[in-house]
């Protein structure tokens, strides 16, 4: 049994990959069998990620060498000090992100059993879904720069295919086309940076390159290429234009999972800024880069969302503005890295930013699922054609209210817990930051009140029934986590977010976990 535990990191990536490609076979046998097959795959991955978090908390960073003699010989004896193979380094931050991605995909998978029923090519849908999940988990857990590019490509292509799943008279295909172009441009620029690093330090492992980094002129080029390419993939403002198109046109559950896909790129941006360049680079500049991205994303995202009339585009703009909160939180942590201020409020700012990642994944996933439910029943996503759904879609209305209240940061829910941490730590760095953050959270509330009114309130215009059970189960999973994190933020901080923040901030530990030869 102990042998199996060491292989968990690899299993987490491989299970969705293999089970995804086996789905069309099962699908040919029986529809019900395929649903069971997919849900068990997602459930097993979810359980493994939880086990992984437990392992990382108890035994520290998990290192797994793909194809090595034993699971943790990172530097083979005859390689002269260079970790040759692909190494999965799973520290607390990666385990945290893997858990987030697996939970939202589980909820989305259960949700799409009924929401995608009867559509043509359903088994391909589930294959791409599991492929996308393995791409995300790979991006989050790999310690190898090039391997990250490979998983980034898997994830981008799978989600481009899924966005175009419902052709929707060609509009979704156009959105998927834009998403594919932007992802490939970003990924190739990232690959170009990896090429430069490989040329300079003839190593691809992130920890290895970080330990050998001398910050030459070329490294500054790489810094620029990495940070901006990953910022685009994460969807921050000056480069956010693809987000409303991609999320707005994807089918119900996919836009919820796309949120965690762009959060995986956000993870990569933080990993690059903290672990690859770390204290060698001028953390004030990279910190201010993240903070200014955050401020722009917050304000422009929410002001654009206020005037949208399409329910999914409005929520897409909110995904951008909430990503701004994470960038702000972690950016303040990065800007104060290494100084005395870091221990005073920098670490808590990072904790707020990272806690906001999982909170955002939960309530944004829930909101996209409720939007999918409304579209599933009404067929249109235009807010002007909706009205009075609360009369007979009771559960969806309650789920939507919980999601809207938590995204707006209203006290008892989880959005408030992470935003409170961000407000009360970033203002010490610069008071303007948290003033803008508070104003943006009220504007978020305003736009969701608008959706709440035009879609759910008003006289009974359509006699629609409640959405089928599986969709409600999908939403219930995310709602229970929202309420859990809302009422017990201490537990989330102590077990999930605190170790993740410390692991991210501690570059030396990351390098020693790989180079030190566990």
């Amino acid at each position, binding site marked *: 049994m102990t042998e199996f535990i060491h292989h968990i990191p690899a299993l987490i990536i491989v299970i969705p990959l293999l089970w995804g490609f086996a789905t069309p076979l099962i699908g040919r046998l029986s529809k019900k069998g395929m649903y069971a097959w997919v849900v068990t795959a997602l459930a097993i991955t979810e359980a493994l990620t939880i086990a992984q978090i437990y392992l990382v908390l108890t035994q520290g960073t998990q290192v797994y060498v793909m194809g090595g003699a034993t699971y943790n010989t990172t530097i083979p004896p005859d390689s002269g000090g260079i970790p040759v193979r692909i190494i999965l380094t799973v520290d607390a931050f990666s385990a945290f992100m893997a858990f987030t991605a697996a939970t939202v995909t589980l909820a989305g998978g259960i949700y799409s059993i009924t929401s995608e029923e009867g559509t043509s090519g359903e088994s391909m849908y589930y294959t791409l879904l599991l492929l996308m999940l393995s791409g995300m988990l790979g991006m989050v857990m790999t310690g190898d720069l090039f391997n990250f590019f490979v998983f980034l490509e898997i994830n981008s292509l799978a989600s481009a295919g899924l966005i175009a799943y419902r052709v929707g008279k060609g509009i979704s295909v156009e959105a998927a086309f834009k998403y594919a172009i932007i992802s490939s441009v970003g990924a190739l620029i990232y690959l170009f940076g990896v090429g430069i690093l490989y040329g300079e330090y003839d190593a691809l492992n992130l920890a290895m390159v970080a330990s050998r980094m001398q910050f030459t002129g070329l490294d500054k080029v790489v*810094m620029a290429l990495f940070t901006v390419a990953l910022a685009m993939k994460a969807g921050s403002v000056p480069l956010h234009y693809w987000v409303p198109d991609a999320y707005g046109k994807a089918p119900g559950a996919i836009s919820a999972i796309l949120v965690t896909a762009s959060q995986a790129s956000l993870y990569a941006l933080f990993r690059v800024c903290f672990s690859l360049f770390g204290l060698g680079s001028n953390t004030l500049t990279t910190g201010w880069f993240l903070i200014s991205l955050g401020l722009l994303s917050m304000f422009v995202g929410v002001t654009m969302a206020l005037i949208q009339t399409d329910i999914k585009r409005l929520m897409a703009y909110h995904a951008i503005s909430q990503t701004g909160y994470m960038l702000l939180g972690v950016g303040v942590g990065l800007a104060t890295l290494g100084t005395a201020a870091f221990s005073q409020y920098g670490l808590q700012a990072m904790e707020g930013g990272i806690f906001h990642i999982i909170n955002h994944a939960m309530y944004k996933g829930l909101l996209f699922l409720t939007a999918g439910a409304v579209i599933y029943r009404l067929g249109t996503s235009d807010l*002007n054609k909706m009205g009075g759904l609360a009369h007979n879609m009771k559960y969806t209305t309650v789920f939507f209210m919980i999601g809207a209240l938590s995204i707006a940061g209203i006290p008892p829910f989880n959005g408030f817990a992470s935003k409170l941490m961000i407000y009360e730590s970033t203002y010490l760095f610069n008071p303007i930051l948290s003033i803008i953050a508070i104003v943006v959270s009220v504007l978020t509330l305003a736009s969701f009140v608008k959706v709440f009114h035009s879609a759910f309130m008003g006289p009974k215009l359509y006699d629609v029934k409640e959405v089928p059970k599986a969709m409600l189960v999908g939403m219930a999973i995310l709602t229970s986590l929202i309420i859990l994190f809302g009422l017990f933020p201490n537990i989330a901080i102590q077990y999930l977010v605190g170790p993740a923040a410390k692991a991210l901030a501690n570059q030396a530990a990351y390098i020693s976990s790989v180079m030190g030869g566990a």
Partner: protein
Amino acid sequence: MVGALNTYVTPSGFWNPILWLIAFLISLLLAYIIWSRGEKSYKKETEQVKPFFAGNVIESKERAHVRAHNIYWGFVEALRPYYMALKRIHTGDVNDYVAWFIGVTSFMLIIYFLWGVKP
């Protein structure tokens, strides 16, 4: 004395969600006590339940529902110039997206070359 419960502490503040929820439920009970003393009955299905529209009748249910596009007129009107500029930037053309990407990359290149690394 009340701090015995595990309060969620931030660098310059604190917040206890469960305590608030208990207090909220109790004050909800207090409000319900006052509320329940009032009159419950009303004449169903009469003219009484029609929405007040200055004495006129709203022809159909569609017209009674205010649609989404004319919401927050006040706010959008006050920030009119800002919103005009914002709408112009969001062109929806992939070439502009990539152009923005190249622009921001070159800008960040200059920033990193100037202050990218600690001297």
